[in-house]
């Protein structure tokens, strides 16, 4: 088991080093998410006090759209220079490869959420009541998005139409996460925190299901020639 964790860390470290050096997430994905937040403000007319009420939903839509780029990129780097062959030849456990890639995506998503959350706080004028619930919701939603994203990322990997196919495959799947995360954040930002528990459970179940799916399914998907 420790071997699996060590291998997963190896893969995650590799992916995060690629990100640290190429700076695609910081230079492109983050600004893109910021632009989405601004566009929502334009579309919904900030003067009418609508923004604070719908802020959680807008936040998670922005995370989802930006996260899509992150996932797409995590598997695009494997498609170039036959890197996926190298990954197969490395002898790493496919489950570890999945956990590593999902972990790296999760770290990027968390970074994205921190920055977007700050922007939300400043731009949309929201008040935080339950910090713990907010963080718990974000952690579970991130785990679910990263796991499901990695499963579908590898399904669409290496195809010429990857950029258009991945959103169609992934967005319906993660719809429950978006719904649950939005309800949880609504409860944490102004509603009654007790309302959030069913949604927290939904997110935990979702993250668990897709993590198991990825661990099981990565073997057959990686061994293909």
């Amino acid at each position, binding site marked *: 088991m420790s071997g699996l964790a060590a291998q997963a860390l190896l893969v995650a470290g590799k992916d995060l080093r690629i990100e640290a050096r190429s700076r695609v997430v910081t230079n492109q994905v983050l600004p893109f998410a910021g632009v989405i937040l601004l566009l929502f403000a334009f579309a919904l007319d900030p003067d009418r006090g609508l923004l604070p009420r719908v802020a959680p939903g807008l936040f998670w839509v922005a995370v989802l759209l930006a996260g899509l780029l992150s996932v797409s990129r995590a598997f695009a780097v494997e498609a170039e220079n036959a890197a996926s062959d190298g990954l197969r030849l490395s002898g790493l456990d496919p489950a570890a490869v999945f956990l590593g890639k999902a972990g790296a995506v999760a770290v990027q998503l968390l970074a994205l959420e921190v920055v977007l959350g700050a922007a939300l706080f400043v731009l949309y004028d929201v008040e935080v009541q339950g910090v713990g619930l907010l963080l718990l919701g974000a952690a579970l939603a991130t785990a679910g998005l990263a796991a499901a994203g990695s499963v579908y990322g590898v*399904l669409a990997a290496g195809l010429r139409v990857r950029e258009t*196919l991945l959103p*169609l*495959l992934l*967005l319906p799947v993660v*719809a429950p996460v978006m719904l649950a995360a939005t309800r949880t954040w609504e409860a944490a930002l102004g509603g009654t925190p007790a309302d959030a528990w069913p949604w927290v459970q939904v997110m935990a179940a979702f993250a668990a299901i897709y993590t198991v799916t990825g661990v099981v399914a990565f073997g*057959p*998907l990686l061994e*293909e*020639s």
Partner: protein
Amino acid sequence: MEQATSNGSARPPRTWVAPVLGVTALGSLAVLAVLGLWVVPPDALQGDAQRLMYVHVPAAWLAYLAFGITALGSALYLWRRTRHPKWDRLAASSAELGVVFTGLTLGLGMLWGRPVWGVYWTWDARLVTTAVLFFLFLGYLALRRMVADPDRRARRSAVAALVAFADVPVVHFSVEWWRSLHQESSILPDGRLDPQIEGDMLIALLWGLVAMTVTYAYLLVRRYRLAELEEGLEERLLDAALAERRAEGEPALAAAPGTGA
């Protein structure tokens, strides 16, 4: 070019299965129309709009069944010991039909919702999870169209199908898990066989289920055969191209020794 029947998949053995299923499907659908539109009385509260139940509910059940077959075929393909292209063809054929039946369910449900609920669409758990199911398998079909290599396509789409199938129980139990505008299960409340419908209506509904299932079986057999033929066609075109190239090469080969000597 005259084609011999050497390729087994190219010239099918004539079977009676598909025609018999087709005629049965047509006949049972006609009986369903008569039953649902004339024989069974209109609903006390909803009037004639309720007659949509005899097609809407069977369509939904068939969507479950079709995606269940897809999941089964996908699992059998992924499992090494039963890996065979026929399971992939089965999964693909059934998924297409499942999308059709899901679309039919949504469309008929909208037509029913308008007079009874006052709206075509409402943001309700059952409706939304069904719509998600529709898009999940549209994505599956899109994935199938995009991957060229047969084995790679079969594996990837099998995983996608199994993941997408996880939404089917969510759709089914959505009316019990969340407070929903959509009514709860009438045939199997709380998982027990305890129909809450009046006799004639129940018969029409069950007949609808039989008629739709036969229709599904007929379409599945036809679609599976089509998938088989498509694969055979690809092989045959390749064979024909190879044969042509060889035919072009032969005169040159025959002439070559003469010029050489």
